[in-house]
């Protein structure tokens, strides 16, 4: 299975009403790859990310064309279980948001909805998820506290723990550090490399500096198109496309 891509987009287009937000994306993401989708706002990167777990379905008046495969199965084909797809493709949103309940209940939310109600089992899942999100030591004594009391950075790691608790295969992160201070940002960025050992990770950011810091592979989106992809070292030192060069050198965006 090493050779087959985890995610494969072929001429993927996406429309909000008449507006074409993605103009034919061809992109391959390997298993356990850390891919950063980089681009200015309005480039379609978030739209692409939200297409990967069909979260855009919730927005009325949207439609797609082309194909988007995960493990060789077109996720937009008829009969796909969307809830199960979203379980497999976890999503961390731009702003850290805790559900209005306790820390424990936040992490246990997903597993409970999957029918796991055994207390001991839930406790194990929650502990493991919090450990993997490097939050356990900070919250282990106050799991019953309202999650809204956590700091922004902690809430964002809580969001990651919440996703990990449903045992996804892919983790999508949409500008996960945009609302955080530099220190919390670094913690999240370090965490990405822990995650990629077990998961396929797709990060979206508008910040070239963050793409450079995180490393891994980069896909550069601009105005609904995929301009180029490559390892971050190449994108930043030998970009093939003039537009990429302009962006990473700070000429726009």
């Amino acid at each position, binding site marked *: 299975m090493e050779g087959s891509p985890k995610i494969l987009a072929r001429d993927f287009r996406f429309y909000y009403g008449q507006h074409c937000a993605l103009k034919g994306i061809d992109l391959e993401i390997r298993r356990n790859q850390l891919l950063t989708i980089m681009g200015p706002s309005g480039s379609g990167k978030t739209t692409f990310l939200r297409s990967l*777990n069909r*979260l855009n379905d*919730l927005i*009325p008046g949207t439609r797609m064309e082309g194909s988007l495969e995960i493990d060789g199965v077109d996720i937009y084909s008829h009969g796909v279980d969307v*809830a*199960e*797809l*979203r*379980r*497999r493709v*976890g*999503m961390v*949103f731009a*702003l850290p*948001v805790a*559900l*209005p*309940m306790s820390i424990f209940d936040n992490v246990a*939310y*997903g597993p*409970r*909805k*999957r029918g796991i109600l055994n207390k001991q089992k839930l406790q194990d899942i929650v502990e493991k998820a919090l450990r993997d999100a490097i939050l356990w030591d900070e919250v282990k004594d106050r799991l019953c506290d309202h999650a*809204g009391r956590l700091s922004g950075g902690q809430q964002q790691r809580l*969001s990651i723990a*919440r*996703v990990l608790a*449903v045992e996804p295969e892919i983790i999508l992160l949409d500008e996960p550090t945009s609302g955080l201070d530099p220190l919390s940002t670094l913690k999240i960025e370090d965490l990405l490399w822990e995650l990629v050992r077990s998961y396929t990770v797709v990060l979206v950011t508008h910040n070239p500096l963050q793409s450079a810091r995180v490393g891994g592979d980069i896909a550069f989106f601009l105005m609904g198109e995929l301009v180029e992809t490559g390892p971050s070292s190449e994108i930043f030192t030998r970009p093939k496309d003039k537009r990429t060069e302009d962006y990473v050198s700070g000429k726009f965006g």
Partner: protein
Amino acid sequence: MKQERAKGPDQHVVNRRMTAVFAGAAMMTVGVLIFIVVYILNRGLHIVTPSFLSEAPRQMGRAGGIYPAIVGSILVTGIAVLIAAPVGVATAIYLTEYTREDRLPRIVRFGTESLAGIPSIIFGLFGFLFFVIYLDLGWSVLSGALTLSAMILPTIVRTSEEAIRAVPNAYREISYALGSTRWQTVTGVVLPTALPGIVTGVVLAVGRSIGETAVVIFTAGTSLRLPKSLLDPVRTLPVHFYILAREGISLDNAYGTAAVLIILVLVINITAYSVVNRFAARSR
């Protein structure tokens, strides 16, 4: 900050006068409220003794207490809310969380908004024709409660809808993104978050139905006996009060009944607002 001004009255003086006028209007409105409450309690509170609350009326209410009317009010209002609350909340959930295409929700909304504008006497007529006569439920707890539930349905739909719409969309997205279905999202995050607002709406509906007279008098009847089943007629507090006052049976007992009603309504409304405030304080 003095500056040159065009001729005419000093605008700051005008402003002060208008502010006084408007403040006066507001004071008057609140004054009316205070007057009504104080007037009724002042004349009625001493009538309200434990035996007044726990005894059956004698001589058509000239003497004795109001126990059956309390039972009647609790039964009719309680059942009305038990029917209207689930239907109203479900309607609100449908309107906020399940609608994609436009036609059906528009029909639903038209229905609830039209119901909201219908005078209670028309509900009374309808309840009498439909539940009492057509469905042959007679003047009964059930007829009264069913008619009342139709009347308070729009209130519950509207307040629940507002409460549900106020739930941050981020919560829904998080829930969906974790692989929850629509209904799991509704029960998992939407309803728990909206609950204080929904409860407030329901409590306000209780307050509204407990004082309702025109609907109940034609559907639940005016019997002073304790009901043995939901198909027995009852007299509610406002109906009892209305009959005592209008037929001049006993002004004292009328005041006493009114005092009980006023206290109930005040307690219910204040509870409703404090629920909202407590949760508003807790979530932020």
